């Protein structure tokens, strides 16, 4: 008996050619195959930086002597600190940190130069928003050296006795909100936003394309329904699913990771609703753009990747270049992360939350408008 050859080149080649033809027909998939590596290169190559510098810093300066100024310029020269604001009270400092406007507040006490001159070691207080320990770690580590070397120039003449000594100034660092620098405290609440983004966009992204692929869309369109009815009707069940996820993560955060819950949980649940809705709107809009379920999944991925990398979930937001921060500011996840971390770790209330929330609402409104416009009431 003649043995069949294990591989027919002609048949194998026929499959190869067919795959290429099909690949060429599905432009979007092909675009994604090329586009995703490019996006990844851009994001990982340029946007991400594990050593954030030029962090916004406010100063509460009760003593405006030459020494205070030297100290500030020393911090500035370290490249880690960028002074953006002058504060007038402890209260303002508290607020600026809670809202996340600044990463650090440097407090120079009233009697700073007097004590310094007397060799009494005045205390400089540096408060850091340490919700994300990786954003502040290097800056805090650089503080001591920066301060010492910055003041050396002033230690001349009668002050020469202070020169060379490490301890002309007392440095006190308060790592606020996450004093032990436990990264889970930052990641677990953030994960809530990441999980919701992933699943909500994907699930609804499939919702309409599925109807189209299975042919049920034609039937649905022949019935007297309005686009808004269909879109909202498809969103609501998944809001429920989203809440199950939120619940699961909150329970895990509380009992497995012992994440502090400083703020109001009802407020968190309320803002989650808006965040879920924004992601569902995004998914629905994708599903009006995608031709089939595969494309919807690809679009989800295209949205998810920047959300994951540019929102401040994986890498410090302030470590990214300007352009990446601009993109990050558009993404709902960025704002939701600030809200969740703010509520749980900082104990933020409604007014701080609102600063971020309106941007999510705006995003949802714009995206849903596109979705309703794109949802085809007719088949052409």
């Amino acid at each position, binding site marked *: 008996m003649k043995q069949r050859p294990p591989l027919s080149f002609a048949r194998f080649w026929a499959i190869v050619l067919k795959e290429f033809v099909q690949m060429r027909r599905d432009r979007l998939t092909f675009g994604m195959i090329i586009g995703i590596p490019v996006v990844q290169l851009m994001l990982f190559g340029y946007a991400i930086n594990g050593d954030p510098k030029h962090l916004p810093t406010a100063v509460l300066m009760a003593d405006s002597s030459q020494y205070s100024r030297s100290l500030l310029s020393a911090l500035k020269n370290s490249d880690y600190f960028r002074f953006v604001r002058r504060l007038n009270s402890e209260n303002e400092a508290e607020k600026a940190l809670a809202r996340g406007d600044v990463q650090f507040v440097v407090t120079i006490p009233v009697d700073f130069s007097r004590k310094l001159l007397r060799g009494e070691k005045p205390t400089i207080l540096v408060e850091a928003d340490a919700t994300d320990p990786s954003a502040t770690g290097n800056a805090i580590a650089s503080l001591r050296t920066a301060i010492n070397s910055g003041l050396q120039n002033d230690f001349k003449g009668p002050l020469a006795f202070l020169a060379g000594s490490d301890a002309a100034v007392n440095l006190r660092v308060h790592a606020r909100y996450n004093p032990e620098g436990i990264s889970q405290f930052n990641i677990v609440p953030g994960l809530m936003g990441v999980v919701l983004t992933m699943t909500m966009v994907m699930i609804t992204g499939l919702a309409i394309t599925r109807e189209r692929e299975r042919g049920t869309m034609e*039937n649905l369109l022949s019935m*007297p329904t309005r686009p808004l009815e269909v879109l909202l009707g498809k969103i609501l069940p998944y809001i429920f699913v989203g809440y199950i996820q939120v619940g699961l993560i909150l329970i895990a955060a509380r009992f497995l990771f012992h994440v502090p819950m400083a703020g109001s949980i009802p407020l968190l649940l309320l803002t989650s609703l808006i965040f879920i809705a924004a992601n569902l709107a995004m998914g629905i809009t994708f599903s009006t753009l995608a031709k089939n379920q595969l494309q919807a999944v690809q679009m989800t991925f295209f949205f998810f990747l920047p959300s994951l990398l540019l929102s401040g979930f994986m890498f410090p937001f302030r470590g990214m270049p300007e352009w990446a921060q601009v993109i990050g500011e558009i993404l709902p996840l960025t704002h939701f992360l600030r809200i969740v971390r703010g509520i749980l770790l900082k104990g933020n209330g409604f007014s701080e939350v609102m600063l971020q929330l309106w941007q999510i609402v705006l995003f949802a409104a714009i995206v849903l408008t596109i979705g309703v416009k794109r949802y085809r009431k007719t088949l052409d």
Partner: protein
Amino acid sequence: MNGNIAIDVRGMTKRFGEHTVVNGIDLQMRSGEVCGFLGPNGSGKTTFIRMLCGLLAADAGEGTCLGFDVIRESEAIKRHIGYMTQRFSFYEDLSIVENLDFVARMYDVNNRRQAVQDSIERLGLAARQKQLAGELSGGWKQRLALAACLIHNPRLLLLDEPTAGVDPKARRDFWEQIHELAGQGLTFLITTHYMDEAERCDRLAYLSYGNLLTHGTAAEVIAGAGLTTWSVSGSELAELALQLRGIPGVNQAVAFGARLHVSGTSQHLLEQAIAPFRTEQHTWQQVNPGLEDVFIHLMGTSQDNYTL
């Protein structure tokens, strides 16, 4: 305004890019009529139906459907028509009763539960109502689709190849039901490729490459074609057909079961053409042309606009 007119449209046109898929079709139908919509695949039947129910926006055309403006009042039209798509388009992962209930809610049917139960019983689906639609055979799917189309008491039903892939018994039952409903005043527009179904329609419309070639009762359509047809029986008919085709006067030579139908538009030319072939070997007999002869003739004379 005549209350008995169900459809009255003129100049309905749809283009997809360069192609004119439906080219200025006029159609009038009275209430209670069953109109058969025929034509080869891709002739624009489905597109025309989709324009009638507002699924596609017409590029040109005007008129009324159930008294509503066919261009501007598609929302109102949708409430009063039932559209059964060519491909099964209910939810395969919902049961029969869930599908019907969904449709009933979509149309805001009064007494919804009752309406769903009635429709299940009327169609003999009671025993299967909990079964998922995806598990049903072709015939049962078709029954379900029809039940769903009827649940809101529409006045016009647009059925797009409702009996494709359905066995002969189910097809027969289906048509009986259609005539029963038509007797109650429901109007039907049905596309089909089956001649026996075409013969059961009150009126026929034949579309080819977007153009309405003929329109009328079966008798009118046949008469309008002006065909003369001879039926031949005997041996080696395929050979004979090959010889006949191409001879001036013979428009077509088509096998009908064990017989060959030879048709021409001019009786005189046809008789001249077939004279040399009327030998002992075959039995020749002039017959009245049937719908199929006419449709094959229509198909042969119209030009494919995709090849232009």
